[in-house]
């Protein structure tokens, strides 16, 4: 989180439009006025990128916090809790994210959640008072609605990832753990889960990039993330559509590429020595 704060402060410190050691006129001269338009508005777009990144992170986090228990319940639970998780999961996975987002924004009694979120953020701000870090306390409704929508949908998919991983662990591991007297819960915690987490990484990587790209759908509820901002721009100067979209596509591409490599690195760091992936 500290890196993100540093990054945003850096972005704010940069003078407008001076991203590269070339001037605006030079860009216009060599590449045409549409690219000049993009260059001129690059900081507007880069702030959109920040929103996109933040939205992705909060949604994935929510997805994990809800999805992991859900996956465990589906793998090990029984009765009503399991049935509930399954049905709800089917609902979330079978409905378009666009519809879920509209639903969250317009239908849900969102004031309750908004108030809770505001309260939470304000208390964090209070705690962080003396330190140089800050947390935004004025988060737009659309951001929270989008987080909830993306988060719970991601949870529905993450639960499947974890359920699959938990189920793929050989039955013998559980037997061996129990044969030395471990309770079922203890065995799950110390033997099954550590192995399952490692197996979840590829699916998790996939999910991360999906959420990253689906942040673009928050466009529909007016959130100022990258795609919405690009839409604002190219409807202004319609000859520059291709250039603007190419620029943001590059940003998205860099983000997905970067995320995949980072997660690759993390998974290698924690891999079990000797096992092939």
């Amino acid at each position, binding site marked *: 989180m500290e890196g993100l704060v540093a990054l945003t402060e850096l972005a704010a410190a940069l003078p407008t439009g001076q991203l590269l050691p070339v001037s605006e006129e030079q860009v216009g001269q060599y590449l045409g006025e549409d690219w000049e338009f993009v260059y001129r508005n690059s900081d507007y777009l880069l702030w959109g990128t920040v929103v996109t990144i933040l939205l992705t992170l909060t949604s994935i986090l929510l997805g994990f916090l809800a999805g992991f228990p859900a996956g465990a319940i589906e793998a090990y639970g029984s009765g009503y809790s399991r049935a509930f998780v399954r049905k709800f999961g089917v609902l979330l996975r079978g409905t378009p*994210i*666009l*519809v879920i987002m509209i639903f969250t924004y317009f239908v849900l009694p969102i004031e309750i959640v908004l108030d809770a979120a505001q309260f939470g953020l304000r208390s964090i701000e209070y705690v962080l008072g003396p330190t140089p870090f800050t947390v935004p306390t004025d988060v737009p409704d659309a951001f929270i609605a989008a987080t909830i929508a993306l988060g719970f949908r991601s949870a529905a*998919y993450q639960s*499947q990832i974890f359920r699959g991983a938990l189920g793929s662990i050989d039955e013998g591991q559980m037997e061996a753990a129990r044969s030395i007297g471990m309770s079922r819960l203890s065995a799950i915690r110390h033997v099954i889960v550590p192995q399952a987490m490692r197996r979840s990484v590829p699916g998790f990587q996939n999910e991360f990039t999906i959420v990253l790209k689906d942040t673009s759908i928050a466009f529909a509820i007016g959130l100022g993330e990258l795609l919405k901002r690009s839409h604002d721009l190219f409807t202004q100067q319609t000859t520059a559509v291709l250039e603007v979209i190419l620029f943001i596509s590059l940003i998205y591409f860099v983000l997905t590429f970067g995320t995949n490599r980072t997660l690759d690195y993390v998974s290698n760091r924690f891999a079990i020595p000797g096992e092939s992936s």
Partner: protein
Amino acid sequence: MSVADALGIDVGRLRESTDDLGRVAMVVAGIAFWGWLVTRWLYDWTLGRWGIGPGAGENVLSPAPFEQAAAALEGSVVALGPVRLPVDWLATLVDGVALAIDIAPALATGAWYTVVLTTVAIVLGFFIAVPMAVLRVYGGPFRWIALTYTELIRGTPLLAQLFVLYYTPYLALWLNDASVVGQGFVPDYAFWIAIIGFTINGSAYQAEYIRGALESVDEGQLTAARAIGLSKLEGIRHVVLPQTLRYAIPAWTNELVYLIKYSSLAGFITVPELYYRASRIASSTFEYTPIFTLLALVYLGIVLSATNLMDRVERRYAVPGIGQAEGRQQG
């Protein structure tokens, strides 16, 4: 000695019969759902156009009696004390039914666009994806072409891709110039742009899934094929691909479901599919809850039918020992 035992109830049997009941309910719901859709579509194209009955896009059933019933219930709510809450919910439900009847024709037309868009895009995408996947696995020095294609398309959001195709003047102009577009049965050019966009997007993802399935077919299969005199291409076609396609069914079903859901984005480039129609109605009547609940149910219906269908396909083409039906995600 559990309660069930004490009462002499066979819990196992009971659960079985509720499962069966659930299954029967699903089948009935499925038949009702598709029955309504198909009847509506056929009516709109034939009888509706010829002037018989209320006309294409108009209600057959009147929502009025339901609206009156709902109003009556709501009116009675004031009088009743403790029963207020459930009666209130019942009133909302009946109101919802009235609304459903009201917007059903519009949704049905939208559903047609959704279904056509999805089916055409995924089939066309398939015919691009298979060569791409083969190129990626067996292509030698040309592998990078397939790699670039899939990485670029999978690395950028679908909505951005649709915007490029829609707003970039060249494609739009070319399509608009074709005089067939927009006349009679042939849909507007936005629809064709959506088809192109979804085909390309879907083909990249399908290529990845098929590639994964290709790689899980043992190398020895191709070796054995070549050993009996088949060329590499023939070996791929007759030995490797049949196995690949079976392995790929679960992932492919996944892609089909994704396409069904993401077809909702076509609404942003003015294709009059399900989401577009629902949101138009919602922004004029402001009845977001019932409309979008209904919308979610329609999408759910299409998605569940699709997974059901693919289940059958998988079982029909299953060969013992190849692929598995377990572990596949729903949606």
